[in-house]
Every structure is written in structure tokens, then in C-alpha cells.
């Protein structure tokens, strides 16, 4: 049974626009997202899909209802603690202008890890380089955003979103401003990351092309989730080196295991958290195993 990563319970969001005018952006929304899922939220503009994404991402608070992320009820957390939740648990990718213009691709990916401050500089740089390799930008480490195409920038944003091993990656129209080739690459990347890294994605889009990579689609209209259905998974042609990605993932997991073991030995990490982290790594390994046996 997969773990529940996001749980939205009876969420309402009302914006007060004028003195007597309320806009009901979300009405009694209930939603659960499991670990390893790709969930697509579709709907026309103004339907409330971005509001929902913002609430899941702790950027906005619901008027009523509860939001639980990776077991933590974030509904009433103060802004200070929300920064930490976003830093550790959530990766964000927006439609455009995702990157810090003064930083190189590598530095952009390093940034969340630097903010977290748990790894030393060499480790951070190594991991950032590997993540950029994974998204196929190993040759663009020192490029500034302005020197990259829209699609490349989006891939840097994806690498950055993964930097702190978040529980979930939220995407708002990730292919909305890129050309069709880049779109295919990005979609393939999302699918591959999900397949081999076990990354959970929630993607907001009104582009049906994007929805083909989803495990599940949720429609939203007038602030209401009115239909959900499971869809069969369609694979996109191989555009990325899967072997490289598996190698990176196994390398990440190996290093993470060593780090956790060290922390545990030093007594910094509590026993239950250690056990939880170990089981998360185990689940990821099993995922790789099952994918590999499928391919064989």
C-alpha cells in the first residue's frame, strides 16, 4: 500500500474581492495523492486549479478545511515553519521565469541545498551536477538562464525542484512556454523521474498532451473537483538515457544511506525518523527493481 503524501480535506477558499463580493475559488475539495503518483489537475482558466496548487504548496491558506503534507498538518502553521516545509518537502516548477537570473544553472540547483544547510559545499556541488546530468544538462552547468532555451530552463527548474529530495513536486503549466520538442523532453523527464526516482508529481495544466503522462486526472470547474478517473499510462519515446538515470539514483540512495547511518551513529537522528528514512529508501529501491524486472 502506497503512502499518502498529500491529503486535502473539505478545503474551501473564498477570496473577498469587493466589499460585498466573495469569490468562491474552491468548494469542499477533497483529494489524496499517493507516493509515486503523477496527478494531473485540469480545468479552464479561473476554475481554481492554481489556487488548489498554491494551497497544496503552502503558498496560500484555505479558508476552511485541512491540508496534510507527508503526515504534517500544515493548515495552521506559521509562515516561518512553512518555509521549512517548502524547503524540505515540496519542489516547485512554474510556467516561466523559474530561475534566479544572476545564478548559473549549477548555482540555481545548489540554492535549495544551501538554504537547507545540511550538506557541505562539495556534497552540494556534486549532487547539483548529478541532478543536471539527470535532466540532460551536464554540459550547461555554468550557463546563465539568459544563455539557455525555455526548455532547458524548465529542466534546470526541475533539477532544482528535486534538490532536497522533496516528498512532492508541484508543477504549474510546466510546458506552457516551451516548444513542442522541449515539451516532449520535459514530459519524458517527468515520467522517468517518477519511474526511477519514485518522485510524486502534481501537475496543473490545460494542455491535454501533458495529461497523457498522468496516472490520474482530476478535473476542476468552478472551484469543484467534479470528476476523477484513472488513466492508462502511456510511455513516450526514449529521449533520455535511462541507464544514466538509474545509476544516478542508486548513487544518491547509497550516499543518503551513508549519511543517515552517520547521523544515527552520532545520535543526531532519532530512531523512528531513521527507520522511516530507511523504509523510504527501501521503497525506492523496490521501485527500481520492479521497473528493471519489467524491462527484462
Amino acid at each position, binding site marked *: 500500500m502506497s503512502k499518502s503524501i498529500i491529503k486535502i480535506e473539505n478545503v474551501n477558499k473564498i477570496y473577498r474581492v469587493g466589499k460585498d463580493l466573495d469569490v468562491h475559488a474552491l468548494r469542499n475539495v477533497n483529494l489524496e495523492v499517493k507516493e509515486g503518483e503523477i496527478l494531473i489537475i485540469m480545468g479552464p482558466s479561473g476554475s481554481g486549479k492554481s489556487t488548489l496548487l498554491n494551497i497544496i504548496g503552502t503558498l496560500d491558506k484555505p479558508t476552511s478545511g485541512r491540508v496534510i503534507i507527508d503526515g504534517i498538518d500544515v493548515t495552521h502553521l506559521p509562515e516561518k515553519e512553512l*518555509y521549512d516545509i517548502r524547503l524540505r518537502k515540496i519542489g516547485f516548477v512554474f510556467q516561466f521565469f523559474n530561475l534566479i*537570473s544572476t545564478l548559473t544553472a549549477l548555482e540555481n540547483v545548489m540554492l535549495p541545498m544551501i538554504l537547507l544547510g545540511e550538506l557541505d559545499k562539495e556534497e552540494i556541488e556534486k549532487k547539483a551536477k548529478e541532478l543536471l546530468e539527470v535532466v540532460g544538462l551536464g554540459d550547461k552547468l555554468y550557463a546563465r538562464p539568459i544563455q539557455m532555451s525555455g526548455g532547458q530552463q524548465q529542466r534546470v527548474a526541475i533539477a532544482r525542484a528535486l534538490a532536497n529530495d522533496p516528498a512532492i513536486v508541484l508543477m504549474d503549466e510546466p510546458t506552457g512556454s516551451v516548444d513542442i520538442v522541449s515539451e516532449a523532453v520535459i514530459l519524458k523527464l517527468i515520467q522517468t523521474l517518477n519511474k526511477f526516482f519514485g518522485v510524486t508529481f502534481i501537475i496543473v495544466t490545460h494542455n491535454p498532451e501533458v495529461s497523457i503522462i498522468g496516472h490520474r486526472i482530476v478535473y476542476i470547474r468552478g472551484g469543484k473537483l467534479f470528476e476523477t478517473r484513472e488513466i492508462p499510462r502511456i510511455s513516450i519515446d526514449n529521449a533520455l538515457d535511462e541507464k544514466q538515470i538509474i545509476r544516478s539514483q542508486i548513487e544518491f540512495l547509497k550516499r543518503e544511506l551513508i549519511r543517515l547511518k552517520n547521523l544515527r551513529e552520532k545520535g543526531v537522528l532519532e530512531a523512528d525518523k531513521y527507520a522511516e528514512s530507511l523504509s523510504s529508501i527501501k521503497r525506492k529501491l523496490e521501485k527500481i527493481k520492479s521497473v528493471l524486472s519489467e524491462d527484462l
Partner: protein
Amino acid sequence: MNRLFIKFVFKMALRSMSIHKLRTALTILAITWSVATLVALRTVGVGIKARVSDEVNELLQADILIMERSLSIPEQVSYYIASIPHVKDSVGTIFIPAKIGKFKGVNLVGVPVSKIDFFNLEIINGSPPISDEAKEIIIDSDTAKALGITAPGTMVKVVINYGTVYFEGEFKVVAIMESRSFLSGLFGASFVVAPLKPIQEMLGREGFVNYIFIKIDDRKLINDVARAIKRNYPGADIVKQTDIVNVIIKVMDIIDGMLMAVTVIGLLVAALGVMNTVMMSIRERIREIGILKTIGAGGTHVLLIFLSEVIIMGVSGGVLGIVAGYSGSFILRDFVNSLGLAFEIPIFLVPEAFMLGFCVSLTVSILAALYPIYKAVKIRPIEALKIE
């Protein structure tokens, strides 16, 4: 807050500033200019004050002065004062305006020959009188020039026309001394020194003087000594060297204050420049602030990102301002000199002025940036992301 992030932040600031080179340069220039003005005024001010005390010392050659309008102080008083504790030396003199040659106005100082050393005269040519009876005179180089005298030995006519007294007599120039003291330069008055006795005789006031110059062994005790003199000679008009210096310094402080007010206007302009630059920078990067906050940067992180730019501008403006101000103080000195002050203002390295310039630069920059940065820190990520 980890060190790696702080390093990162300064790297970001430097890059952002290099993207907006002109804007950054102009802002730093504004800070530099105001700090330079501040430092230059301070440096020259300190130089002038130091020079003023030196000059007053040199002019008076005494710590305390007793003055009377008329020649009414018995000469013995000066010997008596010499016996008051902490008085190192005391000279009774006649200090009187006179004309020398045909029209040259001078201050004539009649001094007992044994006490001529008291005044530290810098003799250029010749030697001072050795006899108390001799009608000999030491003139300063300005007077010598005005009279066309190049070497001792010439006879000059001295005219004293003071109140009801009128006298003229021939004196022999025995020495030429250095003209000095900025006050003499300022008032266009020169000094000549002669033995006391012939002058007393000329004026018909043997045994009397009108000025007593007093040196004490410890300047800290100047008030105590002045009080002791007052006790012994209740009617004496006592002027302390410190009083004169204080009056001059007070006047200079007023001028200083006015100049500083002008500097403050410059600082305000610089502050507005910093504020504007930071506001522009924040406005341009509002979306980046949104992204930073979305990926987990807190208010402190955002604060540091923009504060680092301000710190870099403040520090570089401060340092450049100190360098420019110190170099500028030489120009300012030449300018003041060109206004007709015939004395060389010394330029010292004044660490206090440098510290002040640096602190003011940094403080003003940070204060000016606080409001725009505060707004950037407070903005919610969702609002920042909405602004295109």
C-alpha cells in the same frame, strides 16, 4: 544562517550590480561624493584647529596675559607674579602701536633685554640688543621689506602716538627676525622688539608696563594660576591663552556646523539614490523574490540578498569617499589658502574623520534601504509571483 549562503548572497549581489553597472556606479558616486566632502571638511577642520592653537601659542608666547590700556602696572608686579607657584616665567612689557619709518604701522614691544629669549624670536640676520639702555630695535622681515632694509645697522625713526602721548626717536636696527603668526598676517600688523627701558623713558613712565606675559609649568593648572593672580591683583585684566583659542575655535565650529549642514544635504541625496537603486532592484527582481520564497527562503534570506548589495555599495562608497576626501582636503586647503589666509594648514591623517565617513556611509546606505527591503521581506510569495 550558514556561511555558504552568505558567500552565495554576496556573489549574487556582485553579479546583479555588474549587470546594472551604470546605476550602481552612480549610486556609489553619490555616496562617495558626500563621504568625501565630510572627510575633507573634517580633515581640514582638524588641521586648522591644530594650527590655530599653535599660532595663538606662538603669537602670545605666554599662557596668561595681564593687560592694561594705560601704562599703569608697576614693573615689580611681574617679578612678584614669577614667585606664584607653577609660574615658570613672567615678563612685564610695553606693548603699544607705533609707526616705523615713514608710515609703517607696527606693534612695538618693549622687553627687558634679559627676557628677550622669552619670546623665542627667530633671528634671521644680526643679533638682539645686549644693553638695557641701548636704543636698538629688532624688526621683522615684513617691516624690513617695507622699509627696504636688507641688513642690520640702519637707523629708523620710531613714532609713538598713543592717547595723549606723542614721541619720536631714532633706533638702530640690530636684527631682523622672521615674520610670524597668522594673526599678524591677518591684521596686516608686524612686530618690532626693543629694550624696555628707552621706551619707558620716551613715554615718561619709568618702572611701569602695560602687558605682563606669563608662562606656567603645567597648562592644566592655568585656571588655578589665573585665580591666584586675581587674588593678588584684583583689578587685573587677565586673558588666558585658552580663552583666545576657545573663542577662535568656537567661531570655527560655527563655520564647521554650517559646512556640515551642506554635507548633510549631500548625504540625503546619496540616501535617496540608494533607496531608489534598491527599490528598482527589488521591483525588477520581485518575481525572483517570489521564487526564492517558494523554494523555502525565509525573510532573513531575502533581507540578506538585498542588504548585501547595499553593504557593498556603502562600503565601496565609504572607502572611495575616504580616499577622495583625504586627497580633496589638500585641494580644499589650497582653496582656503587662496582666500588670503597666510598660513599653511597642516593636513593630518585623521582616523576619526575616516571612521566617521565610513560609518556614515554604511549607516545611511542601510537606513535608506531598510524600507524597500522591508517591503520585499514582507511580500507573500503568491503576491510576488503574480507581478510580471
